[in-house]
């Protein structure tokens, strides 16, 4: 099986879809000659031309909205929002338009749009270039939300998002573009709404997303040295969420930690904690522990940024806290 980077896997899903399907095209800022600010779309202009690889002005509302209109007209556009922080400019189009047209029309319309965006800290971009805002979109019926952590998942899930008949907000993590992983020759679609267990374990379930999947696996390996057996589960799709997989795992381990780079307060972990205590209350031997960014904007100075965002040690500490606690 070939090894590709996360970045190449994203490109491969888009290019393969565009080769087989004229209705698929991409729009975004600096995605043409420059190949995107993260280099994801490199070479696509040369292969598909400027009509299907559309460089746009700095107009987040209009490019997301143009994607909505093209999707309503039967195409399957992919819009790139350069940084997740700029989705704040497109919230009206995403939340009031893309998510609701099907519903408001009583089922007449569908909006098969994929909005790719990226974010993530660890490189001192400052407060407006690395936020993790995925939690907001889980509060919006009509959207699907995907956040893959490996090359194979990002390729298979992007494929499924492109061919899903609903609007998908597709989150990529800035610091994962360079990681490598094996993928199949042919694209294997990954079904939206299915979690993946990266590592089986008996003592505690760590539900992790994005970069924290890798930090959690590292933490699990550390914990093993102390005889703690950790199951690491990546939901991959946050909406719809594979609640069954999470609950089944917690019913086995009786303990749960949830980890993401986003801020803890009102983050995805809050929903997981609420769900787990609702659905597995009698199984829980300890409270669900949350790991995430501290409650402040992202600071510039590396020493402060390092302190604000979570790392393997933070997951490990939460694992030990949770496992060490006496049953409730």
């Amino acid at each position, binding site marked *: 099986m070939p090894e590709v980077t996360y970045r190449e896997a994203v490109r491969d899903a888009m290019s393969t879809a565009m080769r087989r399907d004229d209705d698929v*095209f991409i729009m975004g800022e600096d995605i043409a000659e420059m190949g995107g600010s993260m280099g994801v779309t490199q070479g696509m202009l040369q292969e598909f031309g400027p*009509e*299907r690889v*559309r460089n*746009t*002005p700095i*107009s987040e*509302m*209009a*490019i*997301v*909205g*143009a*994607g*909505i*209109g*093209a*999707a*309503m*007209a*039967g*195409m399957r*556009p992919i819009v790139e929002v350069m940084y997740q922080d700029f989705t704040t400019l497109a919230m*009206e*189009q995403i939340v*009031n*338009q893309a998510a609701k*047209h*099907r*519903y*408001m*029309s*009583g*089922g*007449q*319309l*569908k909006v*098969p749009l994929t909005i790719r965006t990226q974010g993530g800290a660890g490189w001192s971009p400052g407060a407006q270039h690395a936020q993790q805002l995925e939690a907001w979109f889980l509060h919006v*019926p*009509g959207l*699907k939300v995907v956040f893959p952590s490996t090359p194979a998942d990002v390729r298979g899930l992007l494929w499924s998002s492109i061919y899903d*008949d*609903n609007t998908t907000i597709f989150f990529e993590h800035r610091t994962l573009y360079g990681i490598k992983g094996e993928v199949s020759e042919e694209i294997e679609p990954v079904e939206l709404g299915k979690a993946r267990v990266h590592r089986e374990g008996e003592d505690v379930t760590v539900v992790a997303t994005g970069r924290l999947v890798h930090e959690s696996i590292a933490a699990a390996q550390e914990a093993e040295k102390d005889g703690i057996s950790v199951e690491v589960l990546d939901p991959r799709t946050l909406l719809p969420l594979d609640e069954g997989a999470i609950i089944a795992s917690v019913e086995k381990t009786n303990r749960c930690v949830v980890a993401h780079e986003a801020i803890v307060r009102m983050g995805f972990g809050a929903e997981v904690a609420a769900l787990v205590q609702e659905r597995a209350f009698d199984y829980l031997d300890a409270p669900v522990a949350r790991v995430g960014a501290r409650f402040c904007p992202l600071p510039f100075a590396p020493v402060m940024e390092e302190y604000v965002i979570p790392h393997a040690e933070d997951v490990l500490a939460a694992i030990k806290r949770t496992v060490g606690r006496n049953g409730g």
Partner: protein
Amino acid sequence: MAIAEQKGQSVSAETLKDFLREMLLIRRFEEMVEERFRAGELPGFLHVAIGQEAVAVGVCRALEDGDVIASTHRAHGHTLAKGTHPNEVMAELYGKLEGCSHGYGGSMHLYDVERGNLGANAVVGGGLPAIVGGALAFKLRGEPRVAVAFFGDGATNIGTFHESLNLAQLWNVPAVFVCENNHYAESTPSKQQLPIEDLSKRAEAYGMTAMTVDGQDVEAVYRTAQEALAHARGGSGPVFLLAETYRLTGHYVGDPQVYRPKEEVRELRQTQDPVEKLRARLELSDDEWTELDREATDIVEASVEFAKNGTDPQPEDALKNVYA
């Protein structure tokens, strides 16, 4: 401001009479909406287009099959003019499954995709970007179709308007942006919300072709719309079509209009009623008029009957149509 002098051959009296029929239907429909709302039969939030019928009819009659529109919170006229049956519109206002949005949308969210109505938007400017995208799809597929957005003078103040027209011009897509300048945004008169008087100047920021027309003269609207649509369809780029019009009622049904003098409305009703203007122009006899009026009224009354006899959704139906 400069009114585009009229191109193309003149419109036959028959066609004009047909326009009048449509405008009168919209007028009677809107009046019935006001009446039924006061009677407490209509839920939600209603905005009627009394005074703006000539824009809806003039533009929609100039459309060809396959062209699409997006409307606003003031959507009844556009929707009827685009061909949705009054029964289906009225049923929607009553929240029935037979409604054009099956009871999910309501007055501000009238859809009729089969007839090219991509939906009315309750967010000012919210529908404009999708019209750019629809037009882009037509262009990419080489389809000779045009996408048309209706919006008001107030909508020209919002960022979505700017980004949409800018992108439409940059990509030279077949779109027509119909601005219905009724000189108010809710209670706010032009001078309190617009730094310029001639709204066609908005188009200059994009180098977009602008056409201005008297929105109370349905023939002028129709001809200018034909010209704008031909321009866009022919690949010459999008058009900003400015229709100067008047809102002869409140912003919403029930609006006491404390923000404008009673005389203003009274005078506008005498001088700027597009239905009366066309009636005068056609020199209809009282009998002809009464007959046309009767027709329209019958259709509207029937629509209320149809709506009242419609089917209420089941509560649980609310959970359908969230995802495709």
